[in-house]
């Protein structure tokens, strides 16, 4: 169990079904304040489904408690208003808009709630991602893959989230950029951002995370402090490059 003093997110027995197929079964996870918690697992394990259900994009059964309040039925607009933010796998940027405009859109919810600090927040984002500042007037559609990922994270940060959820931030990126993205994820933790990180790149995720869950065929198969999981022979065999028989190993 991830025992933390101040849980930002607690999900309990979360279930998601697509028709008769149960994609997520009784998944329970906790993210503590200022923690990086990672969910690793192979393609199709239910990782993105889990994030979508937590956000309220997908219907689910079970319990989601965010920042001390139980959400019987999570609704995406309410979750965003309460400070939950998801950086989706496909980045979902507005390609015909500039970097700056994409970032400003990230602050829209806060603006609507009366906050007028978006200029300062944008400077903080530019401090983290100097490359975005250099290209601030460029259209998002002209960005490289790494720049797009940085813009997607930057846009999420414009909302000053209580919980940042990252769906496969390393997907499709070269090792050099992956290193930079994970360095920035670590930097965000130092700044107090709580992070739920869903990743297939188990090595990078376990290096940076405090606590980890292994999701297999819709179920939490293992959990523990990230350094302990990184040292577990079953995880090493299945996810850290010494083999590919993850299902068999995890069932032992």
């Amino acid at each position, binding site marked *: 169990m991830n025992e933390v003093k101040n849980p930002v997110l607690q999900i309990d027995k979360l279930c998601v079904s697509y028709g008769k197929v149960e994609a997520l079964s009784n998944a329970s996870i906790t993210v503590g304040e200022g923690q990086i918690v990672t969910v690793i697992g192979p393609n199709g394990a239910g990782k993105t489904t889990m994030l979508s259900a937590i956000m309220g994009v997908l219907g689910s059964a079970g319990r989601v408690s965010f920042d001390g309040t139980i959400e019987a039925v999570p609704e995406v607009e309410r979750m965003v208003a309460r400070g939950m933010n998801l950086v989706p796998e496909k980045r979902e940027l507005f390609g015909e808009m500039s970097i700056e405009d994409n970032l400003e859109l990230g602050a829209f919810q806060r603006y609507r709630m009366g906050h007028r600090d978006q200029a300062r927040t944008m400077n903080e984002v530019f401090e983290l991602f100097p490359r975005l500042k*250099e290209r601030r007037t460029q259209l998002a559609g002209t960005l490289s*893959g*790494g720049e797009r990922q940085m813009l997607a994270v930057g846009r999420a940060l414009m909302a000053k989230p209580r919980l940042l959820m990252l769906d496969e931030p390393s997907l499709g990126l070269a090792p050099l950029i992956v*290193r*930079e993205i994970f*360095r920035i994820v670590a930097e965000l933790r130092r700044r107090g951002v709580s992070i739920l990180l869903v990743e297939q790149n188990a090595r990078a995720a376990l290096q940076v995370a405090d606590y980890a869950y292994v999701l297999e065929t819709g179920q939490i198969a293992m959990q523990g402090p990230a350094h302990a999981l990184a*040292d577990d022979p079953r995880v090493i065999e299945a996810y850290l490059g010494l083999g590919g028989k993850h299902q068999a190993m995890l069932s032992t």
Partner: protein
Amino acid sequence: MEAIRIIMDEHQSLAAIIHAIRLMIREVGVGRLAPDFKLFKAMVHYLDAYPEKRHHPKEDQFLFGPLKARTTEGADALARLEAEHGLAEARIQALDAALQGYADGAPDGFEAFTDAFETYANFYRNHMLLEEREILPLLKRHFTADDWARADAGCQATPDPMSGTRTPDGDEDFRRLFSRLVAATPAPLGLGGGPYKDD
């Protein structure tokens, strides 16, 4: 075992730089990319300044040395690693000289740099594999709690590029250097903001 996390983290940074250089060389070789000599030099400087001059001494002092004092297991591997660490200067000089020759327009300069880099990259692949597959498991088996406390403290005292290494005495900022390398490396390997510019 924070020490192991830091060491493996640094291996990932080193592997990422080597991967980028290898693919840039390949692109230059087939004519799809013009060589950015300043970027190559900055990357070689990173390899020298961080892995060779900071990472290895940390391994020797806080991990491999104490392991040798605990057990004779892995003695051959440790001796090999120690010898390889001792050849750091010669290793980087060979790479540096080949790059300089290429930048100066030496005949066969590109081929010589490619060969020197491949030698360097192959060496590091084997070196890191030996450390991770043979020595790190031995550390986990033989280190006492006190050994780990000393290793963790030692490795944290000279932090890895992930957390930045700027110190009050003006030491080099490897976090910033790494970010600048990523920014200047051509996409999709990096962010595509080149050519690399000196500070």
